[in-house]
């Protein structure tokens, strides 16, 4: 008798659990569906607004998408003999673009090491200033490079320096955040050991923390270098030196200089792919080599 009631109660409970579960699943599906509909509505209406505000419409333009590349290719094809010479001619600009990226990555990484150590709880020299240093990193990261570059071009004139400073400042913010995440996972035991023998803050960081985190730092810095090459090409386009500037000139000249455009495209593409491959190979090595 008592078994029976227990069994019935158990079955009823199972039933309750089942209905509750099904109810929850149904609700979850409903939420999922609603979110999907909202998302699709946002995408479609967003596309239509963008299409309206654009100078040329999407459906008119989609047919012409290969027109410009084919013009460039056909002209470059006719003057194919020029290409090696032109690539040689633009090589110095390419080197300048790479130099901007390399110098700004180096400067930015150095700044990021310092600021990330100052902004990591448990390692900071002034624990009270952890918050302000983090906000500073957020600010630096939020500035698009182009804003700083354009202001600096007005003050310093054209050339590679404005782009270098702009990219370096952004790099400090971007790498600083990643570095401070790495620092948080570093063991504090070496730091404590060094402190016990009277090491200064600089010595503790240099000898206790940096050796632990250096491979991760290097891996992030390599990734950043690759991003910075792209950024420095773009900044050249808006007016501060390097291959982007040559591209803009060749491009605004229009038909007749498309062999130059093609040569610059090739150089830029080759450089980006090369550094992409090299950096991903080294990064894999650094991460797995630990």
């Amino acid at each position: 008798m008592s078994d029976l009631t227990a069994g019935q109660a158990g079955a009823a409970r199972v039933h309750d659990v089942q209905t509750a579960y099904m109810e929850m699943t149904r609700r979850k599906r409903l939420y999922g569906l609603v979110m999907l509909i909202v998302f699709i509505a946002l995408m479609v209406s967003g596309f239509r607004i963008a299409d309206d505000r654009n100078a040329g419409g999407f459906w008119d333009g989609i047919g012409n998408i290969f027109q410009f590349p084919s013009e460039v290719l056909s002209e470059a094809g006719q003057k194919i003999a020029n290409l090696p010479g032109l690539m040689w001619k633009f090589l110095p600009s390419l080197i300048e673009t790479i130099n901007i990226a390399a110098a700004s990555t180096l400067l930015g990484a150095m700044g990021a090491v310092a600021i990330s150590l100052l902004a990591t709880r448990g390692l900071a020299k002034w624990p009270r200033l952890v918050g302000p240093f983090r906000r500073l990193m957020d600010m630096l990261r939020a500035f698009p490079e182009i804003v700083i570059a354009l202001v600096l071009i007005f003050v310093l004139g054209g050339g590679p320096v404005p782009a270098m400073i702009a990219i370096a400042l952004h790099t400090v913010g971007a790498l600083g955040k990643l570095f401070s995440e790495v620092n948080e996972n570093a063991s504090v035991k070496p730091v404590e050991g060094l402190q016990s023998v009277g090491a200064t803050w600089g010595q503790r960081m240099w000898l206790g923390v940096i050796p632990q985190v250096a491979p991760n730092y290097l891996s992030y810095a390599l990734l950043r270098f690759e991003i910075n090459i792209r950024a420095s090409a773009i900044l050249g386009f808006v007016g501060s030196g390097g291959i982007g500037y040559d591209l803009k000139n060749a491009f605004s000249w229009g038909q007749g200089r498309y062999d130059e455009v093609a040569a610059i495209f090739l150089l830029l593409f080759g450089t980006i792919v090369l550094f992409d491959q090299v950096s991903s190979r080294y990064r894999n090595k650094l991460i797995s080599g630990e």
Partner: protein
Amino acid sequence: MTMARDAGFDASGFFRRKKLMAFTVPAVILVYFVYIFFAFDIPGLADRARMDNARILVADSYSYKTHVTRDNRSGTVTVAVEGENKGTWPQGTSPDWVTFESENRTRVQLKHGQEVLIDANTMRYDVPGYGLISAQVSHREGVVLELPTDTVPDWISASTARVDITTDAGRVTLTRARTEVMRYQFGWELFWFTLDSPFSGKSFGELVGLAVSGDRVVEGKSNLAAIIHDIWNNRMWQHKDVLGAIFETILMAFLGTMGAGIVALPLAFAAARNFSPFMAVRAVVRRLFDFVRGVDALIWTIILARAFGPGPLTGALAILITDTGTFGKLFSEALENVDKREIEGVQSTGAKPLQRYRFGVIPQITPVLLSQLLYYLESNTRSATVIGAITGGGIGLLLTQAMITQKDWEEVSYYIILILIMVMAMDSVSGWLRRRLIASDDSGR
């Protein structure tokens, strides 16, 4: 020692290498910076740097100037903020530091109690510690300047065609055509209302009072609506267009990022080793990813701008194409790390292939997918600003335009502040969404 060597560890060699590294790496970096120092011509930078530009930039970004201009041919005097048409004081009105004493006499008070008198074609300016400067403009002789000293001080530039006097209180310029006095003031002028609005010059308290009172300032419109209308359509600062541009920029980032995610997901399956049985397909898709990533947003933007013209759609598509490559690579890596057992578990219940993907694979990669998408949404807001400057859309375009004029620095600083707010807001929104959407799925991590 021999034991150490037997164990395959040469301690002294190891330390020698360490020491060498510790000196060579900084030395190489130093040498590189020395090379950069000369390659970028940093010694010549001091000559090229325009510190006067920097001063204008800084001063202009937090202050504004009002021009009091006398047309020397017709004799009319106008008062205009920044000398712009849209900031002109209506005829007969003026700020309290300008007094029209008679038909031809206008007295302009500058800072520090200094004042300039414009009396028909003569201008008098008594500079403390220097003396009375007077100048006469005539059609025949141009500008004739009378100074208390024989030599012209360096804050005055004088010729018969143009005289320019700059003091810490203001600035006076004279040409045959007009006499102009400029006074600098702190703040962003006419930010809320232009001078033709009935609400111009009212304090915040008065505006609140007007908004709640029943008397209508503008016929047929409630006061609050009229206030909002006047701010929204402010011709000086163009809030409507600026916020529209911010919206355009966010739209570019949103469409580009999400579109790239949608395109990249199916392609990622074709590129993942454990889902795509054909090596040739895999290789082709992967090279495609590398290609679109390698061509870079800059070149895509140029190509697309040719087909679609300038505007937000072009920017969105440029982001879409570039990020398809990035997402394809990231997603296919995520797919290759998928746990096989979950798929087999779903399969053992008799699930069809599509159901296997839906219940065995998608739940595993959703957290990675979402966090990448949201992370790139934030970073693409920045890219959209840059791309906008190239394609001509969004806030990037407004920023470059304001910079090209080289005088609207207050607008430039306004745009910079807006961009910062926009990027930081997108950062927190994407971080918040990431926590909300993913926290429930991967409580373990």
